């Protein structure tokens, strides 16, 4: 049984921890709102882009002159996994779940005899993956100094990825990030960037619309210009979704931590009071039995 003093110290320390987690939760809540707004503000662009590209892509289906970024280079040997995670921890299973999804994919690909290259965006993903997949990591991009993800940050990654593709360093590129659904639910997602896929583009353009569109310059040139850009846009969207997810995950993790700390304080206070009372009773008994003995 710990002494009264020990109990008092423990209560004080848990209280201090609770204050920190509470503060972190509130900071995360404030940041979450901003991140969520940013993610929502970026959606129209990415969605329009996808819809237009999906529209254009159907025109090129099965044609030999389709751009490589759309059709791929016909091989499936070297896979590049772009793993986007947070720069900081203390956000529940956020980083771990993205890393886990990427790791599973990497293991399946390796087992199938493919070559895997990993591009880490964010330090936490690198920390987690370097243990067993360290030799596959080709580069790590840290966004620690970036307060708010701007399009330029995503564009830099996009340019790097495109350059690697042009140099023939990989055949298929997949982006891993966490889709923000709500504060308590973030879904780790794998999205194939190269060759481009448009599975989540809604067919919002009315039917037969592509026939009446006039293109200036022609479809091929527009596609050639938009496809590289689309990679940056998709990465940008991934990063923004990630930022919102990170804050959401941290908020609920810190909420849990604060609640746990509260429970612990209650328990400790209870046993502290019990022990104090036991001690008083013991002292009384000593005094009374001492008085009786006289």
């Amino acid at each position, binding site marked *: 049984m710990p002494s009264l003093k020990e109990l008092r110290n423990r209560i004080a320390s848990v209280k201090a921890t609770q204050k920190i987690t509470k503060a972190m939760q509130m900071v995360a809540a404030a940041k979450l709102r901003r991140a969520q707004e940013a993610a929502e*503000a970026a959606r129209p662009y*990415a969605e329009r882009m996808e819809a237009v590209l999906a529209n254009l892509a159907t025109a090129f289906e099965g044609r030999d002159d389709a751009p490589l970024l759309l059709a791929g280079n016909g091989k499936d040997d070297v896979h590049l996994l772009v793993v986007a995670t947070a720069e900081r921890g203390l956000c529940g299973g956020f980083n771990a779940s993205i890393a886990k999804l990427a790791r599973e994919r990497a293991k399946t690909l390796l087992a199938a005899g493919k070559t895997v290259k990993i591009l880490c965006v964010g330090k936490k993903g690198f920390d987690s993956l370097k243990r067993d997949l360290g030799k596959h990591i080709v580069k790590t991009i840290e966004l620690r100094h970036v307060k708010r993800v701007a*399009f330029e940050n995503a564009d830099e990654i996009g340019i790097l990825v495109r350059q690697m593709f042009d140099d023939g360093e990989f055949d298929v590129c997949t982006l891993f990030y966490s889709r923000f659904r709500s504060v308590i639910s973030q879904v780790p997602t794998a999205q194939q960037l190269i060759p481009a896929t448009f599975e989540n583009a809604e067919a919002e353009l009315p039917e037969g619309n592509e026939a*009446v569109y*006039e293109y200036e310059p022609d479809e091929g040139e527009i596609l050639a*210009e*938009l496809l590289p*850009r689309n990679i940056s846009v998709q990465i940008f969207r991934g990063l923004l979704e990630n930022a919102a997810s990170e804050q959401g995950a941290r908020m609920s993790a810190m909420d849990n931590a604060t609640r746990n700390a509260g429970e612990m304080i209650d328990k400790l206070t209870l046993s502290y009071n019990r022990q104090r009372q036991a001690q008083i009773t013991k002292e009384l008994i000593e005094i009374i039995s001492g008085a009786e003995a006289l």
Partner: protein
Amino acid sequence: MAEAFQFELVSPERLLLSEEATQVVVPGSEGEFGVMAGHAPMMSTLRPGVLRVSRPSASEEAFFVRGGFAEAGPKGLTVLAELAVPMADLKADDIARQIREAEEDVADASDDASRMRAQIALDHLREMEQAVGSN
């Protein structure tokens, strides 16, 4: 009074403008073109330049846009631009100063990658200067 149509200007970061317009002049990669209500459906890529919006209230606004495309359809005109800045926010001497700084960056760059980045930034500023100058 010309008929109004829905016009949207979207950058990757946010929706800049979503309102009624009577006429929009877009800097297309194959020349500037004006869009008014009921324009035939078309799609064009953009070159860096000035986009002008005329509102039903007869007021005008100009934006510097770079990279992206314009889509005119039955629902109106949507311009997706990688960069879109109101011309009112661009000052010629500010840009001239930034260009000087960028030129120094290019000269000071220690390796190829950073020189390339500085050069791109410089080119972008020059395009902007040109747009402001011709305005």
